[in-house]
């Protein structure tokens, strides 16, 4: 997880340096944020292929708009606002594709990706009770939880990223926590010991 308060000025400064032509600054920024951003996307869209596409799109947009960057807020807020917009666009396209009968016929059957042979390795993590419960949350609640966990952003910043009011963001996060805790209660009694996180 990022510690944004520690890297606030550093990240914004790096982005400003990249905007002014310092390519090395981008590499540092990328190294810091690629993990949280990738997990945010992966756990939002729950498809490694789509997550990779969106990941690339987010960074492309960041690169394309670097000339207009002004360090007014935390860099993570800027980055994840782009990511939020990219995922919203994806879900809209996906909804339209599903609504189109021609597309629906040619589309792959609705088998969860982790059950397909090529998706097994990527979705081993789905077997964890927490991530399964996270995947079952409504998208907005899942997003609020992921933004807080992956970036450490405050509710105000989450509200800004997701373009909603403070109370809405708070309510989404509250529901997400309640549901996750509830989903984990029976699992925790029989849970096997969790592996320590690998860095």
């Amino acid at each position, binding site marked *: *997880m990022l510690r944004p308060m520690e890297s606030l000025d550093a990240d914004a400064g790096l982005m400003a340096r*990249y*905007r*002014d*032509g310092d*390519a090395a600054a*981008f*590499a540092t920024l*990328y190294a810091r944020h*690629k*993990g949280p951003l*990738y*997990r945010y996307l*992966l756990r939002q869209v729950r498809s490694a292929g789509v997550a*990779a596409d969106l*990941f*690339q799109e987010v*960074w*492309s947009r960041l*690169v*394309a708009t*670097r*000339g207009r960057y002004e360090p007014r807020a935390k860099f993570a807020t800027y980055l994840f606002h782009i990511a939020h917009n990219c995922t919203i666009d994806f879900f809209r396209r996906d909804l339209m594709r599903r609504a189109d009968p021609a597309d629906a016929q040619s589309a792959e059957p609705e088998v969860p990706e982790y059950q397909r042979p090529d998706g097994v390795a*990527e979705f*081993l*993590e789905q077997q*964890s009770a*927490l*991530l399964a419960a996270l995947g079952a949350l409504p998208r907005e609640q899942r997003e609020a939880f992921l933004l807080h*966990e992956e970036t450490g952003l405050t*509710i105000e910043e989450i509200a800004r990223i997701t373009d909603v009011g403070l109370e809405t963001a*708070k309510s989404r*996060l*509250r529901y997400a*926590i*309640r549901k*996750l*805790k509830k989903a*984990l209660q029976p699992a925790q009694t029989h849970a096997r010991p*969790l*592996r*320590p*996180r*690998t*860095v």
Partner: protein
Amino acid sequence: MKPRTPPDDLDEYLCGDSELSRQYRREPSPAPPPALDRQVLRASQAANSRTPNLAPLALAASVLLSLAVIPAFVFGPQPEQRAADAPRLLRVAAQAGAAANTPLDRKLRLYSSDPPHARPPAVWLTDIQALRRAGRNREADAEFQRFQSAYPDYSSGELPVTR
């Protein structure tokens, strides 16, 4: 008996280091594949080398523009003077019908606020004649009076400038 308020999960969670957060952090941390890393980094470098950063140029242009514009405001005509410079033009023959009847095949230039001698007498008389043709006799009369006071000795000849 008052119902007990359940503890707010959110406050507890936001305090940090909740059991839920700890458990989430113990989950595997998938990262983007190295090929994706290379693609993004290559694209960022290519973008930087392809387009020069125009921000300093834009700043320089803004400064130059300011330097050019500010003296115009500071040393330019004062408001009273600017008001005096405003064209004192009062168009009286802007109607389409009048323009169509103009014998000289030009749009009418009749400005009752023109200073005397601003127009040559022949042009002025032609304009008055056009006003008559357009049926705007009151304006034509006023124009003719002004004409006569400006050019008392000028003969209008055969031109139908009077009623």
